[in-house]
């Protein structure tokens, strides 16, 4: 289920190289270092320190984060955009099984607040020290411990029952009424 990426150490060059170089030993692997895109893996214990450094850089902003269910846990990808350079640097940190926990960056970067709540809802990753870990995406009636964006969640077979105050939609009712 994991992606067969070529995990090679790409040489640091250009603007992306400067950004990744400034993070020092927090960067453990560099997968891609192009003119406008960079992808690197960072030490999952140092996400807060890295987020602080990235936000302090000129023209940076947190675009968003992506959570991916992979074999070893939940891969959390931080997409940092730089203007006016037009660069997107993606930093990956693994929230390893079985805890699936990683330090929250929401106290340092306000833009990380909602997206960490979303990843918690949909993938079940836990963000330590998050200031406001309430549900954002899922309804309050959705059962605990069911994470719809996990790879082992089937859209049809694993759909939880509707809450008692809701009735299922009447599929095909309009067509039936239309027939003479």
């Amino acid at each position, binding site marked *: *289920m994991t*992606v*067969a*990426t070529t995990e090679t150490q790409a040489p640091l060059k250009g603007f992306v190289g400067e950004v990744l170089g400034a993070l020092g030993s927090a960067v453990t692997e560099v997968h891609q270092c192009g003119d*406008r*895109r960079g*992808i690197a893996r960072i030490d999952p214990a140092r996400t807060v320190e890295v987020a602080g450094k990235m*936000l302090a850089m000129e023209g940076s*902003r*947190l*675009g*968003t984060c*992506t959570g*991916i269910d992979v074999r070893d846990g939940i891969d959390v*990808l931080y*997409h940092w*955009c730089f*203007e*006016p*350079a*037009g*660069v*997107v640097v*993606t930093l990956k940190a693994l929230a390893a099984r079985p805890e699936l926990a990683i330090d929250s960056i929401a106290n340092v*970067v*306000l*833009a990380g*607040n*909602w*997206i960490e709540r979303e990843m918690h809802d949909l993938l079940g990753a836990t963000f330590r020290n998050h200031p406001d870990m309430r549900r*954002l*995406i*899922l309804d309050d009636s959705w059962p605990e411990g069911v994470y*719809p*964006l996990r790879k082992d*969640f089937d*859209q049809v077979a694993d759909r939880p029952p509707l809450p008692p105050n809701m009735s299922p939609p009447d599929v095909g009712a*309009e*067509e039936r*009424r*239309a027939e003479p």
Partner: protein
Amino acid sequence: MSRRTVINIGPYHPLQEEAEFFQLYVEGETVVDVDVRISYNHRGIEKIDESKTFDQVPFVVERVCGICSASHPLAYVQAVEEIAQVEVPERALYLRTIVNELERLHSHMLWVGLAGHFLGYNTVFMWAWKYREPVMDILEIATGSRVTYANCKIGGVRRDMTDEQLKEIGRVCGELVGPLEMLTKAVLDDPVLHARLKNVGILTPEAAKAYGALGPTARGSGLPIDVRRDDPYAAYDRVDWDVVTAPGGDVFGKAVVRLLECFEAIKIIKQCAKDMPPGEIDAKVEEIPPGEGVGHVEAPRGETLHYVRSDGSNRPVRHKIRAPSFNNIPTFKASCIGLQIPDVAITLASVDPCYSCTERMCAVVDADTHKPMYTFADLVRLSQLKTEKLLKGSHRPFPPGGKP
């Protein structure tokens, strides 16, 4: 010490066109905190995309939003083109630019109308929506549809535009300049609107950066960020245009940015229609290799960011979609606190929040027979007839020689 009260706006409220839930914590008339609940319309599109092939996904993601239905597929195909390293033909880049700028034009005019409506200035609402209609019509002429254009594909676009269509697009855009100038003056020179919008809902540049604000919300705070200029895609680096910013960060600044961006959009569309290069409209894409790509596009509300990961099969392993409102809505924490309650409504509207509205429909049923007046097939037929009429020119927006 005054008592703290909670005022609920939503989830369904006549003020707003979509389901969203704001809780204003107020002391007297002053807002001291705001809490937002979203996701009443979550449809799980990221999950659905994992079960679709790379070619099918553009048609799914254009249904994320009925207004940004050109930006989402474009961001997605750019992410995939980055993985597969596809060289997109020049003509396709220009065609993409035209559709995306027409989308920006109609979206900004829609917002100006709604903002007028929120303020009780319904004349602006009527004007803005009246002049938005010709833009929707030329989108229908060019792509066959008012929304969900089904125009983008990996490697290029699906539908070419004829010389007559390009001429028609240029003509209608040219004739829009006059009414838009009138509308801009009506908004920006109105002393009542100045009093109502200036220094209201201020978002400082620092807060805009911290919350990751995007598009007109950031540019209205003086942050000159625009993906079209910073990371040029489509044909934006081949035409002449300017990034519009406004200082202040108040609601007035955001209105100025949106109104002036309409003129930039017209400028871009006219140049693209005039300089359209000949040639192919799509490149052949054999397969999508393993890898990951980021595509971002400046949608009307700000940057739309798509991340795609491929494992070499015919479906994406992961497709992340981040619409601009996801970053813009949390800025209310910075802009609404300290405001009086009546000012909050327009501040909430000022980021042009968009919650993926297009999943709903209503059926009109005959009271006596209980049969629907129109079935789905009837509606499709009606829509096709309208497009045919537009293409024949019998129902042209801004008929030549006539008054608009």
